[in-house]
């Protein structure tokens, strides 16, 4: 009898707390440009799950824009609960301003990046210039479209992929990599400011023979123009792009939204979150989900930022800072 009473009281207590805790929560996810579709689906799935488990009504607001610009907005006071950006360097910049703990990349699995992508080539129907690998991009008469690494996070992945390729060729060194990348940018007729702009230049304006692009962006472009006009070429070696995720500590503490924000970040790693990522052309981390989408993502030979460049801060300093290698090599003509 006593036991029964305890259980009854406990249940009643839980019900009361649940009812008292059922509240309206808003989260702001500050993300980068091409993730609109992805997060629209993630958000509605997460909201439904949280409602079922906790009874709270969660509303998730989104902000999209260039990754670097978004990081700057958060530094300048945009009250993001969670940031989902294109590269770790941008989240590092937020951490440098004291809004996120410095060890953010160790707080979530897989370098705090729930899904990955790689850098691939998009070529025109039938691959008229016979482009198979990085070396083909610097053949005479081949025009390459890639955005400007100084203004686009995505373009920095492209640059580093090319560098890593050259470095891993027989006899590869910093000098040969530099020569290769220099040569590559001489084949670029237009440097768009962002990845989406470069895709438009290639697909809509018909400029260039090959677009260096994120795999998700290439798959999306192929889907949108119909499978015939363009095709995807996977190079022999490329970079593993790991777009990271972090909870913005200072903001969630102030807004008392930490629990929901953390659950949201973890939801990205759940089977459902992974499935949504895969459907939006991002490579899932989960082996099970990856198996289901094996036909969409051919196996690739990739290297990570850590393996070749140490980390993003070092890569940024060596290649993209004022007067660093990208500025030195110059481009075009």
């Amino acid at each position, binding site marked *: 009898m006593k036991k029964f009473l305890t259980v009854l009281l406990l249940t009643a207590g839980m019900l009361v707390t649940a009812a008292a805790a059922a509240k309206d929560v808003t989260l702001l996810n500050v993300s980068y440009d091409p993730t609109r579709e992805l997060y629209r689906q993630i958000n509605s799935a997460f909201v439904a799950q949280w409602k079922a488990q906790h009874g709270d009504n969660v509303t998730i607001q989104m902000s999209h824009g260039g990754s*670097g610009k978004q990081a700057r907005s958060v530094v300048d006071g945009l009250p993001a609960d969670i940031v989902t950006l294109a590269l770790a360097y941008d989240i590092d910049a937020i951490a440098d301003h004291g809004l996120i703990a410095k060890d953010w990349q160790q707080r979530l699995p897989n370098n705090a990046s729930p899904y990955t992508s790689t850098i691939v080539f998009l070529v025109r129907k039938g691959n008229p210039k016979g482009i198979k690998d990085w070396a083909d991009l610097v053949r005479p008469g081949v025009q390459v479209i890639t955005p400007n690494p100084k203004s686009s996070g995505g373009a920095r992945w492209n640059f580093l992929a090319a560098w890593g390729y050259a470095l891993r060729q027989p006899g590869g060194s910093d000098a040969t990599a530099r020569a290769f990348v220099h040569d590559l940018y001489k084949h670029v*007729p*237009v440097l768009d*400011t962002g990845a989406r*702009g470069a895709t438009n230049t290639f697909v809509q304006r*018909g*400029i260039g023979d090959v677009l260096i692009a994120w795999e998700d962006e290439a798959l999306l472009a192929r889907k949108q123009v119909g499978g015939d006009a363009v095709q995807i070429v996977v190079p022999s070696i490329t970079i593993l792009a790991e777009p990271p995720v972090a909870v913005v500590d200072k903001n969630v503490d102030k807004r008392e939204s930490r629990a929901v924000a953390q659950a949201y970040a973890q939801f990205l790693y759940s089977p459902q979150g992974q499935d949504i990522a895969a459907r939006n052309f991002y490579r899932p981390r989960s082996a099970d989900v990856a198996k289901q989408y094996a036909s969409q993502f051919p196996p690739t030979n990739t290297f990570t930022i850590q393996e070749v460049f140490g980390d993003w801060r070092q890569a940024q300093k060596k290649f993209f800072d*004022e007067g660093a290698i990208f500025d030195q090599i110059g*481009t075009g003509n």
Partner: protein
Amino acid sequence: MRHRVLPGFGISLGYALAYLGLIVLLPLAALVWKASGIGVEGLIRLLSTPRTLAALRLSIGGALLAALFNAVIGLLVGWVLVRYRFPGRRLFDALVDLPFALPTAVAGIALSTLYAPNGWLGKWLDPLGIKVAYTPLGVFVAMVFVGFPFVVRTLQPVLASLERDVEEAAESLGAQRWQTFFRVILPMLAPTLLTGFALALARAMGEYGSVIFIAGNLPMHSEIVPLLIVQKLEQFDYAGAAALGAAMLLLSFALLVIVALLQRWSGRWAERSR
């Protein structure tokens, strides 16, 4: 004591000054304050890199050429719209304002669609070897587009108020048409034309949205100063971006002062030639 339309001169003046300070001066002061972090030496180093110089050359040179082009064509268009009556005149008149109303990014995308080698105009120009999109010429085209209404709209009221009997007098005294235009009409229009020129120039120098879509954005070749500023921000280099912005501000200000001086000079010249 003179009669005043606005009541309470002291209050309305104070209000106007405070408002101007809040909306115009404060942001500009913040810009200069942020830029000061870089120091004089840093500013000189920043402004003297070949890449910055090339961008300044394109931004200022392109804006000057575009404003000149607009001054000539804008005068012509303004003249036609004021002096002649023809079907569709009101529609044409309304079209002049379109570059004001259109978001500049939309204009940029439309222009690059039009002038890309596979675009409506580009596919005819390309075989002739004229490349517009993704070259400095494209920058010029975008700058002409955004600056055009300034010239037409500043000139129109003055053109409408020109008295025809002056022209008739010139003609009756035996002046050729070109003489009437260059010695009678143009001096009267000069100060206003310069105002339109200055406005178009200032707009073109700072233009970002429409230019980046058509420029190609290659360093040393087709990169404008506002793009350099955006790139600096992208690298979290606030001081460098603010310094470039402040430099552009100073340059625009200097150009506006020169134009104002020219205006006064041409105004006096017009008075004398009457």
